């Protein structure tokens, strides 16, 4: 669906994603977090695994005994009908929900509940389905906020402009700017995030997640409310993040075309259960998936058959 020509055309800005390493930011050492280099591993050790995770709200079982593994550098899609539990799954991975049973393995550590306040330090970043931007901050400040967890300076240092605070600020600003230009948001850098149209807000969220150079990126419907062109562009960004940085990506998306074209493996949820898990081709052919989610209907069917 996406040709390489396009992917690169998205990157030929002045400050491209490629230039990241030159910026001296004190991020947790990336190398130490990555379990195994993407290219070398034959039987890759998963960077993230869920074991028998169950989650219920009152009487409702949102997730039932879900096990899921995600390999490093993989684009892992999760699809399923509305209310299937996709967002809940991401909320569990990011520590916002605590599963009733089961545990989560992340970077070699096993958790009953991932500590949300340490998630960023664990290499997790995410976007939210219903936008969770800081509306009162500008786009640039939103993106800089994504580096909050790296800050060591105190408010006193910041108020009096002590060297460390100044350095941190400068680094964060540079990094944020390079991300903004990568996502073609430079023009909006100084606008209040809340006043942007919906589609751009989604992109700002993506920038905020990316700025920390996360090991695992969780995207909850990053392309909802975009035109096809915009979706293509976004897909290009996602792919190049993975290609250039080996970032592992977990993606929830309803646009099947995008999902099929972009992901390496797809898990399908329905009513909180995992009904399929495999390559796009496998999933597309799975009858259970077709029944529960894909359906057979194609275009041109509005007039007839109703």
């Amino acid at each position, binding site marked *: 669906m996406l040709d390489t020509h396009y992917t690169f055309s998205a990157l030929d800005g002045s400050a491209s994603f490629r230039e990241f390493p030159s910026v001296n930011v004190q991020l947790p050492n990336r190398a130490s977090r990555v379990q195994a280099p993407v290219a070398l591993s034959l039987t890759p050790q998963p960077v993230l695994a869920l074991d028998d995770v169950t989650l219920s709200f009152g009487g409702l079982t949102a997730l039932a005994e879900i096990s899921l593994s995600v390999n490093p550098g993989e684009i892992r899609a999760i699809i399923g*009908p*509305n209310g299937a539990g996709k967002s809940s799954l991401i909320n569990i991975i990011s520590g916002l929900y605590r599963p009733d049973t089961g545990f989560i393995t992340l970077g070699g550590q096993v958790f009953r509940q991932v500590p949300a306040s340490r998630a960023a330090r664990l290499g997790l970043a995410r976007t939210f389905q219903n936008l969770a931007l800081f509306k009162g901050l500008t786009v640039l400040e939103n993106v800089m906020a994504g580096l909050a967890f790296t800050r060591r300076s105190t408010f006193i240092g910041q108020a009096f402009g002590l060297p460390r605070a100044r350095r941190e600020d400068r680094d964060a600003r540079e990094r944020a700017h390079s991300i903004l230009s990568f996502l073609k948001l430079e023009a909006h850098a100084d606008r209040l995030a809340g*006043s942007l149209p919906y*589609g751009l807000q989604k992109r700002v969220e993506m920038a905020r997640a990316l700025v920390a150079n996360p090991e695992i990126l969780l995207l909850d419907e990053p392309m909802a409310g975009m035109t096809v062109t*915009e979706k293509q562009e976004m897909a290009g960004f996602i792919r190049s993040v993975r290609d250039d940085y080996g970032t592992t990506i977990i993606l929830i998306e309803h646009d099947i075309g995008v999902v099929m074209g972009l992901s390496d493996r797809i898990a399908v949820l329905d009513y909180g259960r995992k009904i399929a898990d495999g390559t796009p081709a496998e999933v597309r052919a799975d009858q259970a998936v077709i029944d529960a989610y894909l359906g057979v209907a194609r275009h041109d069917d*509005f007039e007839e058959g109703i």
Partner: protein
Amino acid sequence: MSNLLEIDAIHASYSETIKALSGVSIRVRDGEIVALLGSNGAGKSTTLKAVSNLLPAERGQVKSGSIVFDGRDVQRHSPAELVRAGLVQVLEGRHCFKSLSVEENLVSGALGRGSGRADIARDLDHVYATFPRLRDKRHTSAGLISGGEQQMTAIGRALMSRPRLLVLDEPSMGLAPMVIQDIFRALKKLNRDNGLSLLVAEQNSTVALQFADVATVIENGRTVLSGPAAELRDRADIKAFYLGESGSFSTDRPAA
């Protein structure tokens, strides 16, 4: 067919400072389905809010131009009066009543019209038939259900007031493909059987152009293109830009 809604060259802005529309014209005839296309920030939502006279509540203002719904000057009628007259909107971003249960949300849609209990019960059944998923969730707070379920609730709520013109702002957002199909099919059926007219802002132009009779494209707050959906569907530049169906990517916007 008579004109049910006529938007004529409206200009609108927010907080007196942010210009959002500078010349949008759309016409919806009785029984027609009109799709409103445009990229992010083109002004689709602003146009639709203007139609329901909801802009003032967001510190927005229609500066010039006119909007006439069924002979009424929209700007002189409160949103509630417009709902009673049959003009109902499903807002962008769902706007469910978070602390109310799904069913209460749906019922609240009928309050505007002042339906009786029996009517409400019947309409509820109807909505549940369209969105079976909602029946399971009827007693859950709308704030806790999934994004897609909220979208269904919002649409169901609007249908509860038995509109003549239903205005939908990105109804497909966040919905699973099958549900999108279901919804549009259901809407189409209402259109055919009950003569419900529809004005739909959509990013998913593939679906929208399939579904609509007429489409209008706006760019930077201006109507740039308007015509029968089938015709637009066939235009190469539109295809390239909105449908993403062309082999080669082009950054040029289609000419108006």
